[in-house]
């Protein structure tokens, strides 16, 4: 492993900022560290860079324990959210700065500066002064400066967060290309799940100083390991339910019984929270009840009665409700429905939605539901 963090813990006074975080990045991997502000991401980065001495845990770079080494001895490239180019040096001098420290001779230095400025598409700005550059150009120069000494690990701490949306998208593509071309192992820290999903080979989701989920972005999105990942990675509806049967797992939600694909290990009768993505839900005409034998009388169903058919497992079940709010987002509508059971759900819908106040049904495909033990959700939410 190029980068290994093992049981990292840090406290500011009595405040724990990071609590037992472990993660690793393989050679050439782009690992995104995703989490809300204040979750401890930056503390992790500063510890890897050596600007912060952790209260506990180890950091290893290429197998060497660097936890107690000063920053200048670690081969780590660092780009902050705020620009840190040196205003008293030219663009070229900024990029050469790290090479000089490593004892690279003047000729090789000049060649390397040209190479990396070329890589970020600013070959002609070598003699410019940083204040003359645009925000996006400055970001590129910072990337070039961090990459020129060929670090073992590149740490990007919210590098695009201060930019506007358009520029952020452009530079995101640039970062992806540059990372591909240089093959540098990268730890990309962001609170923006779109950026993280778009860039990362692998995602580490952090919440309240702890790792809440690790995996490739698609897997994390489709089968979130924790309620926090479910709600932070994309949008999620949380509905209270009760387990009514196992193998396959069946859950009663709002008077309707759903056969759900995942979430084993919940005993019958236990209270659970069901997470389902707004885009997995669809709206149906009012009054149409969940068809199929499985939805009949969930309350009276005994848990050990075998489930009718494998096909029935994936059947969508409908919940009755009233349209509370419709937001027109151009390419889709976000429809908020208040269910008769009292909960509200958000439904993404492509077609023209029913009018506000009208009756509707919400169809929940069982296999898109992720089930968590009740209370687990409360803990994670409260901590956020």
């Amino acid at each position: 492993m190029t980068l290994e963090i093992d049981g990292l813990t840090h406290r500011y006074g009595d405040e724990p900022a990071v609590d037992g975080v472990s993660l690793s990045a393989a050679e050439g991997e782009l690992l995104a560290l995703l989490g809300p502000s204040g979750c401890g991401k930056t503390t992790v980065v500063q510890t890897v860079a050596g600007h912060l001495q952790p209260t506990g845990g180890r950091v290893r770079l290429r197998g060497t324990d660097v936890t107690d080494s000063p920053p200048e001895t670690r081969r780590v490239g660092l780009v902050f959210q705020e620009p840190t180019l040196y205003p008293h040096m030219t663009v070229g001098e900024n990029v050469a700065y790290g090479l000089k420290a490593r004892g690279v001779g003047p000729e090789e230095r000049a060649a390397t500066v040209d190479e990396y400025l070329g890589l970020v598409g600013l070959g002609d700005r070598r003699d410019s002064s940083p204040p003359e550059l645009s925000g996006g150009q400055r970001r590129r120069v910072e990337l070039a400066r961090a990459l020129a000494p060929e670090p073992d690990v590149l740490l990007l701490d919210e590098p695009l967060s201060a930019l506007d949306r358009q520029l952020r998208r452009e530079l995101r593509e640039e970062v992806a290309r540059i990372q591909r071309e240089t093959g540098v192992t990268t730890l990309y820290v962001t609170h923006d799940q779109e950026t993280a999903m778009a860039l990362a080979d692998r995602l580490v989701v952090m919440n309240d100083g702890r790792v809440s989920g690790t995996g490739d972005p698609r897997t994390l999105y489709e089968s979130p390991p924790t309620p926090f990942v479910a709600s932070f990675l994309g949008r999620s509806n949380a509905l209270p339910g009760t387990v009514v049967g196992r193998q396959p797992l069946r859950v009663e939600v709002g008077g309707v019984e759903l056969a759900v694909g995942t979430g084993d290990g919940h005993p019958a009768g236990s209270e659970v929270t069901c997470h389902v993505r707004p885009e997995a839900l669809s709206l149906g005409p009012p009054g149409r009840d969940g068809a199929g034998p499985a939805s009949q009388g969930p309350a009276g169903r005994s848990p050990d009665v075998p489930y009718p058919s494998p096909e029935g497992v994936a059947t969508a079940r409908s919940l009755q409700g009233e349209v509370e709010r419709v937001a027109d987002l151009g390419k889709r509508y976000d429809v908020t429905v208040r269910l008769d059971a009292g909960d509200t759900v958000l439904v993404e819908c492509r077609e023209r939605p029913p009018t506000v106040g009208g009756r509707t049904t919400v169809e929940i495909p069982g296999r898109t539901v992720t089930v968590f033990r009740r209370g687990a959700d409360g803990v994670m939410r409260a901590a956020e």
Partner: protein
Amino acid sequence: MSLADVAPSWRPGRPELLVPAALGGLLLLYFVVPFVAFLSRAGVTGVVADLSTPDAQRAIRNSLLTAPVATAVATVLGVPLAYVLARRSFPGKRLAEALVVLPLVVPPVVGGTMVLSAVGRFTPVGAAAAAAGVPLTDSLLGVVLAQTFVAAPFVVVTARAGFGAVDERLERASRSLGYGPVATFRNVSLPLARGAVLAGVVLTFARAVGEFGATMMVAYNPRTVPTRIWVEFIAGGVDAVVPLALVLLGIAVLVLTAVQHLGRVQTVTDR
């Protein structure tokens, strides 16, 4: 640069600045009237003749010897202190900050008395130094001690503000690019805080070269320009002060111009 940029920004009909301008103008007037009144005396005295007396020459020489030394000591010790105060919090930092401004808030004559009570001829330190042949009072060294005590806070306070304005992340970036703390200070922190540090040095020098109260207590002899001015005033009144005062003024203007030229420090902000 467009025409609008170079055109004078003064336009009639900006009443919102009228009141502050009037108040500020009053203060400026109060600066300029005594200055002009004093300088108008210069014509009636033989400046050059007065300055060529051995006493005046000695005073000028002493001032030019001591003030740069005091400034150098204050800078070499004060800039690191300013950096630490700007970058770290530590137990007792409040106390350290209070100590830095102490010489600014006590009257110089009291400051001089404090120095005297620490290194005076009858204290252990002063006695030992005098026995070793380097008396700490009534000597050029005493002058330097008095000047440093009173003037050093200026460079500490100003440089501290300068270092505080340098984003610490610039230093972190430098460390991650392979430079140790000392090299980072030399390559990044100091160049970026240069303006403030130089301004602090200038202020410290100006204060040191004009220092009177503390110097009088610690080392009334040998005479510096300010103590000599006092002696002249007692003997000959206002007119007798003019020649040496002009010397002090000249030194101040020279140093300010030189530093501005070398460091391109902006003391006048154009808008």
